[in-house]
């Protein structure tokens, strides 16, 4: 065997072993661990690690009520545990702390405050809502698990209240997210809030707390309204 032949063989073997290493490397990652390609809201394609995959490009789906006794039981269970997200958007949030204290004590009605949207099913929009806050409200609302309920507190959420002519606060909330219960007043007292919770419970028990489904059904309309006033839309369209 000449020296040249030996060189050729050596290089061949090297290439083979490299290919082997490459293929074996590929074998170590499971198919579900591979990076997922997603189109970001600005149009660029980004890769997402499945371990940190909070990115959804799927629209919300309607969940048909089961109907019958099962649905009645579920509605009873839902109405008795209303977990409110601790997110105060405006001046109305000052009415929520008294509810937690012994004087008004909303725990006796099964209403509780939770720190994250993933653990809560009711969202109190407390008072005026600026466009900047609306952006955060939409993101938060979409991250809450369904079924979810919205309580709009104060006259600002109904028709703008005393900020009806402001350049930065929205006039009516139900154009952007579906509202279950309105509580009128400026400010409503904690008693009014308790009454609002009672009303919400009644609605859920009657099977009328289906606003999350309404949001899914009219999703495009709601998104169009939201995008009309949020001019720098720099977040994903669907994020839950």
């Amino acid at each position, binding site marked *: 065997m000449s020296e040249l032949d030996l060189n050729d063989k050596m290089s061949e073997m090297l290439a083979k072993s490299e290919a082997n290493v490459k293929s074996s490397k590929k074998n170590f990652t499971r198919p579900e661990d591979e990076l997922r390609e997603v189109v970001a809201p600005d149009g660029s394609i980004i890769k997402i690690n499945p371990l940190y995959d909070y990115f959804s490009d799927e629209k919300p789906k309607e969940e048909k009520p089961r109907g019958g006794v099962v649905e009645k039981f579920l509605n009873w269970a839902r109405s008795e545990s209303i977990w409110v997200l601790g997110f105060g958007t405006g001046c109305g949030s000052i009415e929520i702390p008294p509810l937690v204290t012994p004087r008004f004590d909303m725990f006796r009605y099964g209403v509780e405050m939770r720190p994250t949207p993933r653990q809560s099913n009711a969202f109190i929009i407390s008072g005026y809502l*600026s*466009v*900047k806050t609306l*952006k955060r409200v939409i993101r938060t609302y979409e991250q809450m698990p369904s079924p979810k309920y919205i309580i709009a507190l104060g006259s600002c959420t*109904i*028709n*703008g209240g005393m900020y*009806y*002519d*402001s*350049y*930065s*606060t*929205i*006039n*009516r909330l139900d*154009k952007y997210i579906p509202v279950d219960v309105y509580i009128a007043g400026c400010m409503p007292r904690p008693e009014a809030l308790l009454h609002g919770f009672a009303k919400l419970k009644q609605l859920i028990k009657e099977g009328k707390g289906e606003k999350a489904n309404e949001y899914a059904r009219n999703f495009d309309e709601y998104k169009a*309204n939201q995008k*009309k*006033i*949020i*001019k*720098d839309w720099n977040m994903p369209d669907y994020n839950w």
Partner: protein
Amino acid sequence: MKQFIEKLSSKYDLQEVVYQRDNLVFAAISKENAIEAVTYLRDYEGFTHLVMMSCVDWIEDGKFQLLYLLNSPEKKCDIGIKVYLDRENPVMVSAHHLWKSVWTYQREIKEFYGVDFPGSPRVDENFVVEGWDDIPFMRRDFDTHEYAEKTYFPRGNRKTNDPAEYMRKKLYPNQPVTAKQRKDDK
């Protein structure tokens, strides 16, 4: 204070000097000399504290007025330096090198009134509203009601009641109405 202002007016061309109180004076200085005067007051006269910086829209005169309100902890007195800018092209020399708090004031004024401060840090970023695309909203020719009607889906049927009147009618409907109240009703 009077002596101090006389001393200052020998250095700079002061106009519209107003002695508001014993320890508060306002004076207008031209746009070119204003930052120099503010620096002089800070470094040599002990006006080390910037109380605030604000902007006024004098739409009738076609001018913006900037105000640098300075305080001297030693002299225990305040001086307000006014600067008038042309309303058509409002550009002012930045004072961000004098106090760090000026960064924020200038960012605020840029967003609220559209007065530009070239070179000031982060002056072009959003401050209060995000993605604003109309004329700056604190200018007096910006109609905020019209903008809200156009943008935010007004509900309509908006009614306003005089609280005293409404409660009188609601609580005492049978009480005889006085002549003054009848006049008010009309």
